[in-house]
């Protein structure tokens, strides 16, 4: 379920009343549970948002599938109208005039307005002119929420109601904004209801069940995922569920008993499908190395093919073995082997 995040109770009031949310008992307070979302009220400002959202994500874990921050913002330019609700694109962070390098981009691919999270209200024209070069909107919490979302790998969205044009700020306007919190909340609630159905949910993919009988280490799992992704780019409808792939998996199961060896064979096969050039290279190298292997050398070479260095290991128990090794070395052609590494191959 999504976690909806608000700075002020007033802005969340419509959500609390209309969706029958129940208060959840936590050490940090102000967490509510509904039938299809959680709601958290953090209090105003960067630090409050950072602490409470992080605590909440830690508490709820995988029960949360995305974070959605609702709130209000001010505009630094005349481009946007008061009363508009904007989906934020990229959020920057400013502590006074000092900008934090890191930024976060929301998961809304259609968003096109950036914002600055600021630690203090923008009341001076000097500060305004410094900040407007980065973004047109200012608010107080989104960067903190996005930072936590990034940490927990949740998709993040932020929707802000524009309440004022910053240049025109005064004490009266600030008070008016506070007093109008419930009105903003009503607007945000209607907005949320209208977009609820279209917000995409990111889900992690599961390992395919057809890989039963194969044993994957963590790095091999990553390798498999990477190979499948690359293959799907090279061959648009490639998948392990295809007939050809199923046959391959079956064939490997039939002639290779050990799950670990099956995995190695599968990964090698997929690599060769992705990179036929590598298959040719590997075959040519093995052909060149045959005399050495037949002479019972253990041969290792650079599997990345960047260096042509060879390492040979052998055990010697008799003169006969020595003669075999010498014979193998005589039959081995270093020049032919090197040619492979300088690209002199027919492909």
């Amino acid at each position, binding site marked *: 379920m999504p976690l909806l995040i608000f700075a002020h109770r007033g802005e969340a009031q419509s959500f609390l009343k209309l969706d029958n949310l129940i208060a959840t008992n936590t050490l940090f307070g102000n967490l509510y549970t509904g039938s299809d979302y959680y709601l958290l009220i953090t209090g105003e400002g960067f630090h409050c948002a950072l602490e409470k959202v992080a605590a909440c994500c830690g508490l709820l874990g995988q029960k949360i599938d995305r974070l959605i921050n609702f709130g209000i913002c001010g505009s630094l330019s005349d481009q946007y109208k008061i009363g508009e609700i904007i989906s934020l694109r990229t959020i920057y962070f400013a502590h006074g005039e000092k900008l934090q390098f890191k930024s976060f981009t929301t998961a809304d691919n259609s968003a096109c307005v950036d914002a600055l999270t600021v630690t203090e209200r923008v009341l001076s024209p000097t500060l305004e002119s410094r900040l407007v070069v980065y973004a047109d909107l200012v608010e107080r919490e989104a960067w903190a929420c996005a930072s936590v979302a990034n940490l927990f790998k949740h998709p993040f969205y932020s929707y802000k109601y524009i309440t004022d044009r910053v240049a025109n700020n005064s004490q009266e306007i600030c008070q008016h904004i506070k007093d109008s919190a419930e009105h903003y909340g009503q607007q945000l609630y209607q907005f949320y209801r209208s977009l609820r159905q279209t917000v995409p949910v990111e889900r992690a993919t599961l390992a395919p069940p057809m890989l039963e009988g194969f044993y994957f280490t963590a790095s091999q799992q990553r390798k498999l995922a990477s190979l499948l*992704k690359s293959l799907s780019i090279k061959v648009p409808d490639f998948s392990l569920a295809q007939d050809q792939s199923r046959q391959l998996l079956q064939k490997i199961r039939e002639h290779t008993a050990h799950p670990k060896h099956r995995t190695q064979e599968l990964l090698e096969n997929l690599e060769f499908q992705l990179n036929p050039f590598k298959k040719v290279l590997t075959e040519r190298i093995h052909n060149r190395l045959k005399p050495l292997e037949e002479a019972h050398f253990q041969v290792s070479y650079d599997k990345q093919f960047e260096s042509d260095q060879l390492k040979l290991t052998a055990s010697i128990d008799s003169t006969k073995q020595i003669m075999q090794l010498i014979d193998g070395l005589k039959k081995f052609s270093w020049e032919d082997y090197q040619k492979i590494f300088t690209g002199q191959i027919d492909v």
Partner: protein
Amino acid sequence: MFEKVLIEKGVLDHPRAISILEKVKYKTLLEIDTIDDVFNRVKKPYLQKRSNLNLFIGRKTGSLVKEAPAAYGESGHPHYYFIHAYNCFYECDYCYLQGHFHSPDLVFFINHEDIASEMLTIINKTPDHLKPCFHAGEFSDSLALSHLSGEISFYFNFFKNHPRAMLELRTKSANTRALEDLTPLNNIITSFSLSPEQQIREHDLKTAPLKARLAAISRLHKKNFPIGIHLDPIIYNDHIVDEYQQLIAELKNAIPLEKINYISLGVVRFTKDVFHQMQKNYPNSSIHAGEFIKSFDGKIRYNRPMRLWLLQKIKDLLVHSGGQSDKIYLCMED
């Protein structure tokens, strides 16, 4: 075209800045103290260049002309690159700019006199038997927006007075407007980066199509402008030999290969940062179907046999089609 133009207060009255502002379209004009105060200070997502591109105008400070890495150009002569702009309007998915700067915003530096002054110092220090080569386009395309930035004629004038030095203008555009009104000089080479048509469509987003670049080459060649060609980056696929055969045939129609001043060949390569950014920005690029390794200089490349095979294959195709072997060099390869 631009969301914001941010201009240094110190160049508001500069004729070049005024000229640029008259030509570009933008929503907001903002004054800043210096470009360094703002540009690159925050991480602006690379792909926001599609919808939220800003332009900075100001003076370049610090080092303006730098020594180029080894194997940058023809061997035997010292190579330098100079910085007249940052970032590029185009969107090539392998581009190193996506991992180099923290922002895709364009920057036009207008203090070309300072750049020329540094070039002159280098020229005067270079022994007479050597030809110092200066390359534009290290951090931007040399010609794509030259009709806006307006510096080409300035450099033509400079290099006219220093025939011993060479200037290379490297481009993926067909925008030769700024050149065609000028008198060609033997020491100013316009070099075009070319790839097979399908690869341009797939990887060189928003750049001039192959036909347009070849037409530009033909136009300039007919007006006696020296031409260079960069077949770079070479990106492997299962049909690569056929594709380059086709490309070379089409190039021959635009310009006899023996008339080309030099042809460089380079296989696609990345720093670790750029590779990581490319995976993030273009997760569906067919480049990811290739197998990459960390190579001799720490860069991410195809393995050595594949690289050398590709380079030799394409070089053979060129020579077979009339290209001169001594004018073909390998770029950034050991």
